[in-house]
C-alpha cells in the first residue's frame, strides 16, 4: 500500500520538470510535449486522490483530461505544421512576428 503523498510528490516533481521544459526548451514540439507532461502529472495526482478518497470522480476527470489533450494535440500539431511551413523554423524564438 503506497502512501498517497508519494504519488502527490511524484506528480509535483513531474509537473515542475514540465514547467522547466516549458520555459527552457526552444523547439515548439518539445514545448508542446512538456505541456503534455504537465497534464500527465496532474492526471497522476487526480488518480491518487481518487484512490485516497475512494471516489471515482478523479478517474472520470482524468478521462476528460485525456480527451481534451487529444483534441489539443490535433489542433496544436496542425498549427505547428503551419508554422514550420511558413517560417522554415521550429524555434519559438524565431517566431516573433508579434514583436513591437
Amino acid at each position, binding site marked *: 500500500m503506497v502512501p498517497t503523498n508519494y504519488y502527490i510528490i511524484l506528480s509535483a516533481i513531474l509537473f515542475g520538470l514540465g*514547467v522547466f521544459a516549458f*520555459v527552457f526548451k*526552444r523547439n515548439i514540439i518539445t*514545448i508542446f510535449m512538456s505541456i503534455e507532461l504537465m497534464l500527465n502529472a496532474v492526471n497522476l495526482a487526480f488518480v491518487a486522490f481518487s484512490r485516497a478518497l475512494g471516489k471515482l470522480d478523479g478517474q472520470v476527470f482524468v478521462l476528460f483530461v485525456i480527451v481534451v489533450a487529444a483534441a489539443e494535440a490535433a489542433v496544436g500539431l496542425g498549427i505547428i505544421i503551419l508554422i514550420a511551413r511558413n517560417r522554415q523554423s521550429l524555434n519559438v524564438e524565431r517566431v*516573433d512576428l*508579434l*514583436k*513591437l
Partner: protein
Amino acid sequence: MPAHPILEYLWIIPLLPLLGSATNGLFGAKWPNKIVNWVALGSTGLSFAFALEAVREFFDSGQVLFRKEFFTWIAAGNFRAGFDLQMDQLTVVMMLVVTGVGWLIHIYSTGYMAHEGGYYRFFSYLNLFMFFMLILVLAANYVLLFVGWEGVGLASYLLIGFYFLRKSASDAGKKAFIVNRIGDFGFMLGMFLLFRTFHTLDFNTLFDLKHAAGWQAEPWGQFGTLTIACLLLFMGACGKSAQLPLYVWLPDAMEGPTPVSALIHAATMVTAGVYVVARSHVLFTHSETALVVVAIVGCATAFFAATIGLVQTDIKKVLAYSTVSQLGYMFLACGVGAFSAGIFHLMTHAFFKALLFLAAGSVIHAMGGEQDMQKMGGLSKKIKYTYATMLIATLAITGFPPLAGFFSKDAILLSAFQIPGGHPLYIIGLLTALLTSFYMFRLIFLTFYGKPRYDERKVHVHESPWSMLGPLVVLAVLSIVGGWVAAPALGGGRDYFADFLAPVFGGHESTEVLGEAAAHNLELTLAFVAVSAALAGLGIAYWLYLSRPSKPEELAKSMKGVYTTLLNKYYVDELYAAAIVRPLLWISTNVFWKTVDVGAIDGAVNGVADGLTAVGDGVRHTQSGNTRSYAVWVVIGAIVIIAVVFFWTSAGKPVVGMVR
C-alpha cells in the same frame, strides 16, 4: 353604450388629429395631395363633429362640469399627474373655436398650399398642432395643460420654420421657440410653487381648496404665495401670447405660411395665455397685484403694438402687430376682472383675425407672393370676394356695430371704465381703438384703393379658388353675427355670453358698481365714444391715404424721429440683442466653450487618453513577441495564484478558496 358616449370617450377628440398627423407624417411622402387632404381634413373635421356632439351632450347633461380621469400618467410620491380631461363652458368655447376655425383653415390651406413642396409635412404639422391645442384646452390639470402648451410651441416652431431653406424662416422659428422658453420657465416655476403650496395641480381640487385652505385675498402691494404664483403663470402667458416684453417673436413668426399665421399666431395658440389666465382666474382674483399687473401689461401692449402697426408696410406684419394689440385687450379685460369679456373678445378675435389673415393670404396669393402694401393698390375690383370679406373683418376689428368686434371691445372698455381707478386704462384702450381703426383702414386703402403701384404686366392678379374663398365667407358671417349673443346687453338686456360663462367665473366677475339704469346709460355712452373713436381713425386714414396720398411722406419727414422709431419697432430687437443676446453669446463663447469645454472637459478627456498612451508605451515592452518570455509570465501567474490561494491567510483561514 353610455348616456354620453363622446363625453365618456373625450380623448377621441384630440386623438383624431394625432392619428391624422401620424398617418400623413409617416406615409404622406408617397401619397398624392388628394389622399393627404382626405386624411388631414377627415381627421380634423371628424374631431370638430365629435366636439359639437360633445358640446350637445354637455348641454344635455345640464352644463355641470364634466371631468374624467383616463389613466395616471405620472405618479411620484404624493404627486399625481393623470391624463384627465374636463369639460366646462370655458372649454366649450375654446374647443369649438379651435376645432371649428382650425377646420376652416385646413380647408383653406388645401387651396393655399396646393403648389408648395412638403405638402404632407405641412398638414402633418398642422394636425399635430390641433392635437396639442385640444389637449391644452381639455386638460384638467396644469401638468397636462403644460404638455399641450409645449406641444403647440413645438408645432408653432415647426410651422414657422416650414420654409426651413430660408434662413430668416428658421431664425424666426428659433426665436419664437427661445422666447417662449423664457415664458415657460416662469410657467413651470409657477406650477412648482403651486404644487409645493397646495400639493395638487388638478384644477377642481386646486380651485376648491380656496374654501378649505381659506385663502386670504392678497391686497395691492402684498407679494404672497398666490401673487408670486400668478405672476409666474402670467410670465408664461406673456411668452405664449406675445405680451410685453416677450412679444418680439410674433411679428417674425409671420415668416411661416399664411394659414399658419391665421390659425396659430392669430386665432388659437397665442390666445392660450389668455385662456390660462382665465382658467386660473380663481388665483388671480385672490391677488390684487397680479390683476393690476395683468391689466397694465395688457393695456401697455395694446397701445404699444398699435403704434408700431401704424407704419408697417408688410401686410402680414401689420396684422401681426394688430394681433399683439388685440391680445393686449384680452389681458386688459382679464386684468380688470372681466374674464368673460376677455374670452368673448378672444372668440370674436379668433373669427375676424383669422379672416383677416386668410384674406391677406388670398391677396398675397393674388399678387403672386407680394406682401408689401406699397406695391399693391386698386385691387378691390379685381378680387371682389377677398375685398368684401376683408372689409367686413376690418369693420369687425375696428368695432363698428353691429359686428362682433364692437360688442367684445365694448364690453372690455366698459369693465375697464367701471373698476375703481380704471380710467387711465380706459383712456389708453380708447386711444388704441382709434389707432387700430387707423392702421386697419390704412391697410385697406393701401391695398384695395388708389392706383395700382405694381407692374401689371408682370403680376396677373387673380381671384383665389373656392377652397380658399369658402372659409373666408364662413368666417365673414361669423365675424358679423359672432357678437350678437352679447347684443341684448346694450338694450339693457342680459349678456348671454357672460351668463353662459357665469358657472365658470362664478362670483369673480367685477360686480356692477352703479345701478341698473345708470349702467345702461353708461354702456350706451361708452359704445358711442368707442364708435366715434373708430370713425376718427377711419377719417384720418381716409384723409391721409386717399384724398392726400402725398401727405404721409411729408408727415414722415416732418416728424422723422418718431417715424423711424416706430418703423424700427422702438429698436426693441436691437435692445434685446445688445442687452441679452450678445452678452450671453460672449459668455458662452469665451467662458463655457473656450474655457470650460475646451479647457476643462476636453482637457480631462485628452489628459486621460494621453496618460493611457504613455502607460501603454511603457507596458508595451513586455510584449516582446517572444513565446518563451510569455511562458515565464505564465509561470509568474501560477506563482501568484498559488500564493493567494494557499498562503494568503487571515487568522489561519484562507482568504480565497477553501483549501485546508
